[in-house]
């Protein structure tokens, strides 16, 4: 027998893989029948609301949670803080929770508690962009420095030296389904519907602090309304729901309110930088020097700058960082951490250097591709050419600030990289004797199409229609699979399922070979049938009957170094936009992303990932930011009126070009969720600089920042 090796089939023979397949769970979401954790409403469910602090830094001197218990309908109360020990460290920090028969009764309970609280208000610091103020307030700490080569000498010998200031503000994850859970005790067992990216990893996080066995906890997460890196943990409010459910002897649903979601459930750290960057006469960068600051919240850290300048390694560099400890909510991983900030703090400065050199940005970036990491220079060059054609770079590009009238047009570009290797996954594939197929795994579909791509892999492997396979995920009782973060899910689950399905198929082939007296090696499964070469041997159902009375169960695991999956992706983005210099408004006309990501399982959902990332990029580039008020210390725009997200009319024409030459297909599957969200900040900022001739230093580029920069003037 020939060696049986796990592999993807030849590209031209795929029936489903690489085609535009609509997602299999679209309809339940569309008609509202898909149940999210926030929708769980089992009989007797109590609804919980939170008491949160409206001071940025305080001690609770007095609180009476019993006050809530006198309110009609209130069944359980939870205190988050040990009032003798715990300080309030940011606006929105949790104090207590109240569960009641009805939501409005819980709100009454919250008010009853609030009326009893006495605070000792302490001094706060929230001015994250202001390094000097941070030092003065003794809220700064030196986080370290690194260097290589001789920066001073390189700068001295350079043709052009550019010094600039750049920054990117803190944003919140702003998951539309807030963090939270529905907790229900059944005897000693705790059932948790959790809005999570980590179905397999959260049972223990409930069990340990609750003092129960992990085996008694079931986490269910069938649908999740957004996570973006912020939903890996049980969270203190998850424990509160479980405890209140125990106290009341009733199920409790506790989802964060919108303001608390923004303030407490995750932010992306801010980054500000002073850069000196130098190039030789050819336009090659010879030296980079930078000092960074910003905040990740109360920890006093900041953006992880180890990969700066991004994604380059220039011959000489030096960088240092100071962290600011702020009375702001803690950070959490945000889609592609920390690449978006690094890209925005690097490729803006490089583009300014290009302008100073008098070079077309395209030529400048092309010239410096040799310094990019991970051997991707060749791919970047191909992608730049494709993107330039799609956006009309050479026809439309002009030196900075040229253009008549109040509305000025500009082009900008940036590039990015990401790992995206396969994450750990175990699945159990069952082929039933009637030919039906299902799989079980403790993974989750966070909106990326996990169910769909698993279906594609199984159906393609078994030669079945998508309707012939069933995917069971979203329970911690299923085989353990990794959390969905870092773009590792698609590689993890597709590799494990291909392995399991091929193993199952080979078992079935052996039985078919024996029964029908054909060579097992020559068999293939397609169109619901088994073929020997081009000759039909039997139907899929006939073949599965040979399994016997019990299902064939095959375990799939990964990742493995068998070529099914790989890592390292890159991409290039170019944007064409207008800046209204009389209002400061930026309007996107066209935004092109050329993206490589190995073998693409579903072209439709892959493109959706890219398009969605561009929109999320437009959000943090143009409008979305946390606004901290120094006076009150509060996150003053923690609502959807003032935390401005792009609407459907704000995004312009978006173009996702999946760069998938044979060399990419042959690499195997690589994750895609994060990478395309990295470059928009720099690309958009560069396009604005190209349009108006002035660098707007800090993202997002709101009308205020654009007009302030125009007023200040100067050359970028």
């Amino acid at each position: 027998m020939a060696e049986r090796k796990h592999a993807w089939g030849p590209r031209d023979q795929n029936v489903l893989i690489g085609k535009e397949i609509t997602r299999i769970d679209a309809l339940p979401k569309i008609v509202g029948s898909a149940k999210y954790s926030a929708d769980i409403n089992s009989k007797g469910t109590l609804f919980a609301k939170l008491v949160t602090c409206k001071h940025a830094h305080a001690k609770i001197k007095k609180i009476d949670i019993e006050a809530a218990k006198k309110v009609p309908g209130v069944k359980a109360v939870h205190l988050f803080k040990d009032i003798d020990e715990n300080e309030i460290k940011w606006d929105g920090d949790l104090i207590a929770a109240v569960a009641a028969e009805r939501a409005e009764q819980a709100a009454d309970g919250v008010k009853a508690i609030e009326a009893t609280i006495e605070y000792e208000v302490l001094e706060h610091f929230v001015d994250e962009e202001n390094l000097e103020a941070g030092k003065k307030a003794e809220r700064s700490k030196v986080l370290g420095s690194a260097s290589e080569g001789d920066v001073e000498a390189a700068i001295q010998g350079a043709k052009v030296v550019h010094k600039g200031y750049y920054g990117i503000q803190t944003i919140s994850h702003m998951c539309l389904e807030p963090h939270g859970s529905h907790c229900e005790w059944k005897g000693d067992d705790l059932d948790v519907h959790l809005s999570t990216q980590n179905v397999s990893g959260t049972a223990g996080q409930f069990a340990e602090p609750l003092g129960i066995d992990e085996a008694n906890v079931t986490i269910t997460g069938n649908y999740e309304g957004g996570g973006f890196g912020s939903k890996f943990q049980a969270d203190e409010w998850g424990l509160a729901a479980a405890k209140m459910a125990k106290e009341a002897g009733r199920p409790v649903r506790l989802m964060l309110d919108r303001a608390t979601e923004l303030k407490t459930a995750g932010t992306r750290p801010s980054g500000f930088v002073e850069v000196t960057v130098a190039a030789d006469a050819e336009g090659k960068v010879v030296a980079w020097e930078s000092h960074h600051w910003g905040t990740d919240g109360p920890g006093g850290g900041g953006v992880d700058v180890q990969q700066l300048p991004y994604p380059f390694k220039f011959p000489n560099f030096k960088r240092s960082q100071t962290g600011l400890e702020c009375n702001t909510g803690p950070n959490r991983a945000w889609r592609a951490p920390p690449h978006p900030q690094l890209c925005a703090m690097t490729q803006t400065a490089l583009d300014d250097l290009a302008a100073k050199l008098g070079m077309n940005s395209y030529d400048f970036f092309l010239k410096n591709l040799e310094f990019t990491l991970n051997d991707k220079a060749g791919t970047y060059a191909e992608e730049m050419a494709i993107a330039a054609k799609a956006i009309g770079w050479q026809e439309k590009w002009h030196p900075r600030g040229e253009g008549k009238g109040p509305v000025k047009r500009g082009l900008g570009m940036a590039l990015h990289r990401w790992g995206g290797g396969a994450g750990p996954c175990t699945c159990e594939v069952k082929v039933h004797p009637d030919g039906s197929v299902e799989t079980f795994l403790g993974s989750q579909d966070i909106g990326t199409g996990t169910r769909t791509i698993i279906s594609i892999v199984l159906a393609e492997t078994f030669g079945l229609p998508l309707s012939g396979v069933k995917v069971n995920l979203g329970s911690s009782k299923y085989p353990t699979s990794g959390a969905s973060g870092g773009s590792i899910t698609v590689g993890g689950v597709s590799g494990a399922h291909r392995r399991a399905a091929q193993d199952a198929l080979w078992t079935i082939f052996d039985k078919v070979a024996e029964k029908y007296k054909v060579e097992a090696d020559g068999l293939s499964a397609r169109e619901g049938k088994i073929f020997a070469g081009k000759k039909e041997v039997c139907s899929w159902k006939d073949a599965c009957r040979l399994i016997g009375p019990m299902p064939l169960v095959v375990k799939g695991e990964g990742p493995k170094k068998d070529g099914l999956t790989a890592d390292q992706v890159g991409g290039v983005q170019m944007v064409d936009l207008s800046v209204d210099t009389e209002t400061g408004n930026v309007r996107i006309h066209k935004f092109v992303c050329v993206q490589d990501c190995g073998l693409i399982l579903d072209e439709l959902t892959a493109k959706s990932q890219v398009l969605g990332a561009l929109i999320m990029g437009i959000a943090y580039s143009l409008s979305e930011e946390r606004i901290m008020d120094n006076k009150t210390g509060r996150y003053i725009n923690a609502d959807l009126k003032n935390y401005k997200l792009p609407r459907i009319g704000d995004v312009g024409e978006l173009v996702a070009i999946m760069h998938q030459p044979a060399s990419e297909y042959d690499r195997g599957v690589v994750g895609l969720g994060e990478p395309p969200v990295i470059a928009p900040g720099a690309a958009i900022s560069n396009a604005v600089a190209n349009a108006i001739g002035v660098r707007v230093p800090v993202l997002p580029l709101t009308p205020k920042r654009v007009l302030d920069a125009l007023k200040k003037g100067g050359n970028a």
Partner: protein
Amino acid sequence: MPDQGHPTREDQIRSGSGFSRRDFLKGSGAAVAATTLAQSVSETEAAQQAGTKVAPAKASAVKLDINGKAVTVTVEPRVTLLDVLRDDLSLTGAKEVCDTANCGACTVLLDGKAVYACSVLAHSAVGKKIMTAEGLAGQGVDAVAQCFVKHDATQCGYCTPGFVVATRAFVAAKPNATVEDIGKGLGGNICRCGTYAGVIAAALECSKKGGK
């Protein structure tokens, strides 16, 4: 306030000065006419007066027409239609996201018009036909829903039912809509994952077909 080219309101009212008396706009005699009209309106009303029941500040029964079915819930006047749908009736297609009439995730149809259910009191919805995302699916799969599937206009899906209901109302009101029309009409819905490109494609197709 010192005069900044803007007399204080009190002064204007007291003296009757200000530009309102300038008659460059037609209708210098309008004040009289409108006063007459004002009286006639209130006289008509006086004739119509009928006793209106005041619902007390505690739970009372309200009968609602939801997706073609009559439903009675017992709730306080302060309870929103969204909370009734989600918490009392487990009709969770409408989602609570902003809770302040900004994001559209709770969009339902009220007498055929798209509204934010978070900003409608359940007591106000009496006598109106309420249609939720679940209701759209009632008579076979809705054309708008099919277009959303086709164009992959959903990712995490949390904004999706609200977007679908809003799109249903939009295409009914705006056949042959342009991308610009969509930007204006559907600007009341927020998607965080970034499905706008799919929604635009879906809305364009549905609108071309007149929402059929």
